[in-house]
Each structure stands twice: as C-alpha cells, then as structure tokens.
C-alpha cells in the first residue's frame, strides 16, 4: 500500500522522459507512453487487490509538507479509499487501452512525442486529483488536468480554430476553478482544515444543515464541478473540444476529466447533504443538461459532436443521481460510462481515420460491410449507452439511477420524467447515428483510407467491448438476479443510499420501463434517419425545420449568449489596449508643454508688443494715481 505514490509516478516519469527525449525514434515514443500507462494500471490493480484483501482500510501517505493557510496545513499527501480505488482503476485501465489504441491511430502525426508526453502528464494529474488527500492537492490535479486538456485539444496548433477551442475550454473551466478555489479558501478560513476526510466531519459538526455558510461552500464546490464536467451553464466548451484527436476525446472528454466533477461532488457529499438547496440544484443541473444535450445530439451532423453531447447528457444522469443522493449509483454509472463512451470515441476515431477524416455522418454510411469488427464493437458501446439487455454495463447503472428517482417521490417524480425523456432521446440519437454511419450504401466520396486495423488498434476495442458486456454484472439489481458487489465495495467510502422499501414487483416494473422506452426508440430512430437522408436530397423539406434544427444544433444558443454577454463586451472594453490612465498622464504632459510654450512667447515676441504694453501700463498707473 505504501507504493501508492507509484501509480501517479509512472506516467509522470513517462512525461519527463518523453518531454526531454525529443530525439527518440517515432515508434519508441508510443511504446514508452503506453508502457508508462500500463505500469501505472498494473500498480493500480495491485493496490486495489491489496486494498480489497486488506479489509478495505483507508490508507494515506504524506510525501512532504506544502504550505499552511492559517490553521490548515495541506501537504502533498495521497490517500486511498474505496472511491479512489474505483477511480484509479477506471483512469488507469481505460487510459492504458487508449494509449495502446493511439500508437497506431496517431502514426505519422507531426507532434508524436508531444502527444504521448501530454497524455502521460494528463494521466498523472488525473491520478493526483483522484488520490489527493486534501482540497489543495486536488486543486493542483484539477488545474493540471485542465492544462493537459488545453494542450491536447490544441494539439494540431497549426490551425487557429483548434487553438481558440482549446483556449475556450481552459477559460470556461477556469471560471469553475475560481469558484472552487474560493470554496477551498472559505473552508480553510472557517474550518481550519483542508483534509478531504476531516473537513466533512468538522463541517457537519460546525455548520447547521441548510445554514448560509454550508450552502455557500457547497455552491462554490458545485461551481467547480459544473465547469469541469461541462454541465449547464458551463458546458459550452465540450462540443468545441472535439477539435482534438479522437483518443484525446476518448480519454479526457469521455472517460476521465469530465467525470472529475462527479468525483468531487461524491467525495464532498457531506458538504452537499448539509445544503439541501444545493442538492436540488445539482439534480436540476443534471436534468437540464440531460435534456439539452440529448436534443442537441439528435441534431448534430458531426460524429464526434454527437458523442460529445451524449457524454454531456450521460454526466447529466450522474449529476441527477448525485442530486438524489444515490452516490454509489452515480459512481457506478461513471465507471460503466467510461467504458462504453471511450469505446464509442475510439471506434469513431477509427471510422473517421478510415474515411479520410470525414466527420459528417450524413456523408458516411455502409461502414458495417467494410469494417465488421468496428461495427460490432461500436454496437456493443451503443447498447451500453442505451442500456439494452445483452450489454449489462449501461443497463445496471442507469436503471438504478432512474429507479432511485421514482422512490424519492415528491417533486423528484418530475426528475423521473426528465430521466425517462432522456432515455428516449439517448436511444434516438444513438441509433440514428448507428444507422447513418453503418447501414445503407456508402454515401461518402472518400471511402478509401486505411481500413486495415493493426492488433494494437483492435485489441483495446475488443477488450472495452468485452468489459461493457461483463461490466454490468458487478452491480446487477437483485430483482434481475444480480448481486450489488459494487455497492457493497463502495459502502465504506460513500454513505449508503437509503433503502427504497419497494416491493420486488415494483422494482421489476421500474427497471423494465426504461428498457421498453429504449427499444421503442430504435424504429423511431430508423424513421428519423430515413427522413433526414431524404431531406438531405430535397431542399424544400429542409428549409422548414432548418431554423429550429440550427438552433438546437447550436446547443440551444448558449454559445451565442455567452459570446454576446461576456466575450464581445470584454474584448471591446479591452479595445486596442489603449490605456485611459496612460492617456491622462500623456494629456497632463502635453498640457504643461502647451502652457510653457505660451508663456515663453511673452519673452520672445515682436518688440512692438512690449512698447504697447509699456505705454498702456504707464497710462493705467497714472489713472490709478489720479483716482
């Protein structure tokens, strides 16, 4: 267990070796990068095994003292408990598979070293974030992860658009990070401790439930989470983040970074349970994002943007679960989502590469015939996403969340309806994507591309697909004959969700409802795809619905709103960088110069003026004498 620091150390070492060793031959960089990720995964499994067999006792080790904020003195310390074990397993295993996949996928790219260096750095920061023992170290990982997403989104920095997308991602998440930082300072100032284990205890002791300070702290933490997990209102950066390479989208914008927000809320659940108002806010944010993203995904034409919006809506589910205090359900969905969403992204990357960088789904088609392996793995991922029977990953986690909402009763019922709508939307956009990409004749002009897949590309896809199939069993609902091992495992770290007290029949019905809804979605999606292909041909039909489609495709106008509210006034305010204070000092300077020039003219003007002045002076003096 003491070797826990090895887990983040391997990718960090990989980063340093790759960053300094620019002269390494191409292939070696990929190998080193993947090796680092692999070793980290191995050590993570070892630690998990030791943890599980060692009686699941939380363990923390401190490397060196960092600084002290008043009473709180956060150190660079890593701590392990059930929650962080799950997270490091997800991060390292999925990370390793993605590294393997990108060896071949990124071949021939210009910054090959740079890519693997940043990917390793990302895994290192993510692990630091997850293993952090105190808020400050978590914040270090938090910002580091944001930095790597900036570097990797803007990987092909030759094109300005990628750079802008990367900057947008970093700045929008920075808004959330500042909220989190203020929250950390608030906690340090009021509780005197930043430790992730003690501060919740101190908080529940010191702060009353629903008191102002508790609500403020929870809200600030939620701000940070919303930014990083791309939930409404800080979600506009995720669709643009697709400018990065596909493995990046798979690792960062599907499996790990975007779920950091969920991890943070789960980790600080004590603060949230102290502030019920904020809990409802979490649920509402989740529900809103769920619907907005689902609808937008339906209208997208770019394959990766569909998956981006789908990720946003799935995380909406997780926030919904957190809002309903189903902590273990959220984390379980996080894990399964990481599996099938990274699978979908990797497969999408392979498809785009195979079709010569064609991203528009309407211009694809017939891929199933050409690349059957891709089709079957993509199908597995899609079934996971829409929680259909053979693939158990999505089924177990999502249905648990929806069921929990029903039992919560009261206005949570409203959230239940939103979740059900979400299920329908999910299956609609997933199968629309499936039909457009795989079914029918190949519509794309450039069907060439290297479709042959090497072992290092195929292996990760197959492994991920297998994990999707098996994944759900880990926490299958008892009513369907499963056993909630996962819930039990996490019991130590997260408060158990209240017993639902529902009869077996009710439970069965509740898990079947979403299933039926998903199945109903398939034919609808087929019709939708057909109509869309038709309208693609006939412009008349397209004109009518186009403005609404454009609005929905644009993510419900959030982008334009933020641009109008923040970006444009700020750049206008900054103007050409003309500094009014500087103008004031320049003005002062020219004023004094003008005054001195005017005074000087009394000294060197034509003599006639002096004579006149003399005469007038004399006359005036005489007059004064007379009066």
């Amino acid at each position, binding site marked *: 267990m003491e070797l826990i620091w090895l887990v983040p150390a391997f990718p960090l070492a990989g980063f340093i070796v790759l960053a300094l060793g620019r002269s390494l031959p191409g292939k070696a960089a990929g190998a080193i990068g993947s090796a680092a990720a692999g070793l980290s995964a191995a050590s993570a499994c070892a630690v998990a095994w030791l943890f599980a067999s060692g009686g699941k006792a939380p363990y923390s080790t401190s490397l060196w003292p960092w600084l002290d904020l008043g009473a709180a003195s956060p150190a660079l310390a890593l701590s392990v408990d059930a929650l962080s074990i799950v997270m490091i397993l997800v991060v390292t295993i999925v990370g390793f598979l993605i590294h393997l996949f990108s060896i071949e996928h990124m071949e021939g790219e210009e910054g090959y070293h740079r890519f693997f260096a940043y990917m390793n750095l990302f895994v290192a920061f993510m692990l630091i974030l997850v293993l952090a023992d105190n808020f400050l170290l978590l914040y270090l990982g938090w910002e580091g992860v944001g930095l790597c997403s900036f570097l990797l989104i803007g990987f092909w920095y030759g094109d300005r658009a990628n750079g802008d997308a990367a900057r947008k991602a970093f700045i929008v998440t920075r808004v959330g990070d500042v909220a989190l930082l203020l929250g950390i300072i608030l906690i340090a100032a009021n509780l005197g401790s930043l430790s992730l284990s003690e501060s919740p205890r101190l908080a529940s002791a010191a702060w009353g439930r629903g008191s102002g300070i508790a609500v403020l702290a929870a809200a600030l933490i939620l701000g940070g989470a919303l930014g990083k997990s791309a939930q409404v209102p800080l979600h506009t950066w995720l669709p643009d983040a697709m400018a990065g390479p596909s493995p990046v989208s798979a690792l960062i914008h599907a499996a790990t970074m975007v779920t950091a927000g969920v991890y943070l809320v789960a980790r600080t659940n004590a603060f949230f349970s102290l502030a019920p108002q904020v809990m409802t806010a979490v649920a509402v944010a989740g529900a809103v994002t769920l619907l907005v993203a689902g609808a937008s995904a339906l209208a997208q034409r770019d394959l990766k943007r569909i998956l981006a919006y789908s990720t946003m809506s799935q995380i909406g589910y997780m926030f919904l679960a957190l809002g309903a205090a189903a902590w273990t359900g959220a984390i379980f969905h996080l894990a399964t989502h990481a599996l099938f969403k990274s699978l979908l992204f990797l497969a999408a990357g392979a498809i785009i590469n195979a079709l010569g960088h064609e991203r528009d789904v309407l211009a694809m088609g017939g891929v199933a015939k050409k690349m059957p392996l891709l089709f079957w793995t993509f199908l597995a991922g899609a079934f996971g996403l829409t929680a259909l029977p053979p693939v158990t990953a999505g089924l177990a986690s999502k249905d648990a969340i929806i069921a929990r909402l029903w039992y919560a009763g009261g206005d949570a019922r409203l959230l239940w309806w939103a979740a059900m709508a979400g299920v329908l939307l999910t299956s609609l956009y997933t199968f629309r994507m499936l039909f457009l990409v795989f079914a029918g004749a190949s519509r794309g002009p450039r069907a060439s591309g290297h479709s042959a897949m090497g072992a290092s590309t195929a292996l990760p896809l197959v492994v991920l697909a297998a994990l999707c199939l098996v994944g759900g069993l880990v926490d299958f609902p008892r009513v369907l004959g499963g056993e909630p091992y996962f819930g039990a495992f996490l019991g130590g770290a997260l408060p158990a969700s209240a017993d639902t007290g529902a009869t077996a029949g009710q439970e069965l019905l509740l898990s079947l409802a979403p299933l039926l809804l998903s199945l109903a979605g398939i034919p609808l999606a087929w019709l939708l795809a057909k109509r869309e292909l038709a309208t693609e041909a006939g412009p008349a039909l397209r004109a009518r619905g186009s403005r609404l489609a454009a609005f929905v495709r644009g993510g419900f106008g959030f982008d334009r709103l933020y641009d109008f509210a923040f970006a444009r006034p700020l750049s206008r305010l900054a103007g050409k960088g003309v500094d009014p204070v500087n103008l004031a000092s320049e003005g002062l300077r020219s004023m004094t110069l003008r005054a001195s020039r005017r005074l000087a003219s009394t000294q*060197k*003007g*034509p*003599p*006639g003026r002096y*004579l*006149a002045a003399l*005469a007038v002076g004399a006359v005036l003096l005489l007059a004064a004498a007379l009066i």
Partner: protein
Amino acid sequence: MSGQGLEAALALAAALFAIGLAGIVARRSLVFMLLCAEIMLNAAGFAFIIAGARWSQPAGQVMFIFLLVTAAAEVAVGLALILTLTGTLTDTLTGTLTGALSGRPSKGDR
C-alpha cells in the same frame, strides 16, 4: 495774459505729449519712434517753461536747458544705433530685430 492762458498752454503740452505717445506706439519705423520721443520730450520741456512762467521762477527754464542736453545725447546715440541697424538688418520693429537686440550670437559675430 491771465490764468486761462496758462491753462491753455498746459493743455497744449498735454496734447503734444499725447500725440507723441500715439506716434511712438503706432509707427513701426525706429526713426519715427525716435522722432515722436522728441515730441514728448519737448512737450515736457514746455510744461516746465509754463511752470516757470506761472511762478516766475528761472528754475523752469534751467530745467528746460537740461532737458535739451538729454534730448541731444539721446538723439545722438539713437541715430548711431539706427545707422548700425539699417545697414545690415532692418530698422523696423520685427522679429529679426529682437534677435539682433537679444544679444544672441548671430551668424557673423566674431
């Protein structure tokens, strides 16, 4: 000759003095200005004479004599200056004149 005569003479002196002043201020040529200075000087001398006559005191005329002396010296130097100026620069009140008068070393100064 009664008191009124003296008043009239005084008025004459004042008038001449004023005309001299107007001349100096109005004209731009140095020669004219010197001339008008002479007018004013003479008007002042006349006032002395009037006073001397009023109190029948010789002092008035003595002062007039001294005034003559100053006028002579003044004209002598004034004309010499005008002579030196007119050859090279200008003898009217212009900027270059100030330059010359201001003592700044002009081009030819040794």
